[in-house]
């Protein structure tokens, strides 16, 4: 277990370093700043006597409970090689349970901190109840992990997901109303104890269902790697390609009468591949939301500039995407056509982003000198990035 976990942690650290590169960290800092600022303003605007406030908070907390899965680190090969050692599995899984708790526990603590100001503003909840809330969240999460392990044994019936969700919700909600708190906490602890007993009983009498457990772990890792893959190349994880017939018209329209074979290739590769088109869409949508919620015009301008640069920068690897295919080296076309095609594609994508952000600025801040300055700056940066930065960066 220790060795498996060490390799796993090393691997994750390696990828996380790549994910949190300079640009991304910079973007996140700005994003958190903007969100924090908006949140602080929003709290001031909230009417503390609103009846819906606590129900909404309880639902947010319930949703946040689903983050973080049980990491068993089981591999497909384990179902062959560890089969004779199944009797030692309970202690392995116990260690996995402990290890898996770190992430959701920290996450839940963060969420609790995040909702604390809103909760305290109602003045119906004393600060100490936040501790009870966090403890309840942790107890519920632990119970879910324990129940999850039970599910991975043969002969266990399907769980009544709906019923348990309701119970969890009631427990979370009990922490938001003074007077129910202690009872909720006790029940949550009792349920965890009962679930642990169940787990021990199942593990003593039933056989482990390797197939389900391994495929659960596979899909968990798959999700994580797909996330990493947005930022860097994960070996062995091919980004999917989708036919997307509905885009054929758009492709025709965008590539009509353009004789550049690389543009033909880049355009289709971008629109049908999920990797870069997904990244582009996400960044543009997040960017739009950030711009919409930035309340100061120069903050919106700065964030917009950052986003335009970020989108362009994150799309740079598209240029080398086909270098592995030797036919791209055999085509009887001039070396410059590839760069021209790439510039053409990136310029179109960045231009669409600029138009969207500019429209948002106009709607949010109205047509005035400041908005015009922002729009001109967006256009200038986008054009400069594609015309001057791109060629220099790519031919280096």
């Amino acid at each position: 277990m220790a060795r498996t976990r060490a390799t796993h942690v090393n691997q994750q650290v390696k990828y996380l370093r790549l994910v949190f590169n300079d640009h991304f960290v910079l973007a996140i800092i700005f994003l958190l700043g903007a969100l924090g600022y908006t949140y602080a303003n929003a709290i001031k605007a909230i009417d503390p006597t609103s009846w819906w406030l606590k129900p909404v908070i309880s639902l947010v907390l319930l949703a946040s409970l689903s983050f973080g899965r049980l990491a068993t680190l089981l591999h497909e090969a384990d179902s062959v090689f560890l089969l004779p050692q199944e009797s030692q599995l309970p202690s392995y899984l116990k260690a996995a349970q402990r290890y898996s708790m770190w992430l959701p526990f920290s996450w839940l603590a963060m969420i609790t901190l995040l909702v604390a100001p809103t909760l305290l503003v109602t003045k119906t909840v004393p600060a100490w109840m936040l501790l009870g809330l966090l403890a309840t969240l942790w107890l519920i999460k632990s119970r879910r992990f324990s129940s999850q392990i039970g599910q991975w044994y043969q002969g266990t019936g399907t769980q009544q997901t709906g019923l348990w969700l309701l119970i969890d919700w009631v427990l979370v909600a009990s922490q938001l109303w003074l007077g129910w708190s202690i009872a909720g906490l006790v029940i949550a602890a009792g349920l965890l104890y009962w679930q642990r007993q169940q787990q021990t009983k199942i593990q003593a009498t039933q056989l482990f269902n390797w197939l389900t457990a391994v495929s659960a772990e596979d899909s968990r890792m798959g999700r994580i790697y797909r996330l990493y893959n947005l930022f860097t190349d994960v070996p062995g994880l091919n980004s999917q390609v989708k036919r997307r017939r509905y885009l054929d018209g758009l492709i025709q329209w965008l590539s009509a009468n353009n004789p550049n074979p690389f543009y033909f290739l880049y355009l289709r590769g971008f629109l049908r591949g999920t990797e870069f088109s997904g990244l582009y869409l996400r960044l543009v949508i997040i960017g739009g939301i950030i711009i919409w919620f930035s309340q100061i015009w120069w903050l919106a301008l700065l964030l917009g500039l950052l986003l335009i640069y970020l989108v362009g920068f994150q799309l740079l690897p598209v240029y080398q995407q086909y270098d592995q295919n030797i036919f791209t080296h055999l085509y009887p076309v001039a070396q410059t056509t590839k760069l021209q095609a790439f510039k053409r594609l990136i310029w179109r994508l960045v231009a669409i982003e600029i138009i969207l952000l500019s429209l948002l600025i106009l709607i949010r801040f109205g047509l005035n000198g400041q908005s015009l300055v922002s729009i001109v700056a967006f256009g200038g940066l986008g054009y400069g990035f594609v015309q001057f930065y791109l060629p220099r960066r790519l031919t280096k």
Partner: protein
Amino acid sequence: MSLEIKQLTGGYAHVPVLKDVSFTVPDQQVVGLIGLNGAGKSTTIKHVIGLLTPQAGTITLNGVTLQSNPNQYRQKMAYVPETPILYPELTLKEHLDLTIMAYQLDPEKTWVKANQLLKQFRLDNKLDWFPVHFSKGMRQKVMIVNAFMTDADLFIIDEPFTGLDPLAIHDLLDIIADKKAQGAAILMSTHILATAQQYADSFVLLNQGRVRATGTLAELKTEFKMADANLDDIYLQMTKEG
């Protein structure tokens, strides 16, 4: 005239794999490039298509070298790789469109040829599919159609028969014969010696990066002093020489 390789020394990095390799592939001829794994067949082909730069020696196609006029050189050459190489995001039709665009071929005329080839290989109903998901043999057929619909002067075919069904092998040999009759030169590397003996006009025997012998089967028999040998026997004899 066609392909002429003179005293080619080359390979990856600084260690030469090929030493002083010279041979020609004349028009209207199929030349078989024969040798063991690691003898230098693939390296020779990589030099011819221009993925590697010669350390010494010259390669000319119709009198033009890759260095003097890269576009004209590449325009006149079509290549079928050993393992099919395809774009995951392009349909079969788009692969052919891309080739037409990149080689600046006449779309109408080329599509007539392409459709004929597609029909022959029973791919004509799969134009809108992604060929990366095809079986090995079908992907190989896509590469063949892609190369043979062009009007190249030189066709380079790397190990063309593996993965093809017998019918497709037969079709490919017919297509090669057609191109040859139209005046093209064909360089074909293969391990299937029986087929090579039957369909190639002459042979280049590579051994440890050097040309051991070149010529027709009759000339090889004289060279190896094996009067009633077939290509198989000569090949084994060559490997024994070490």
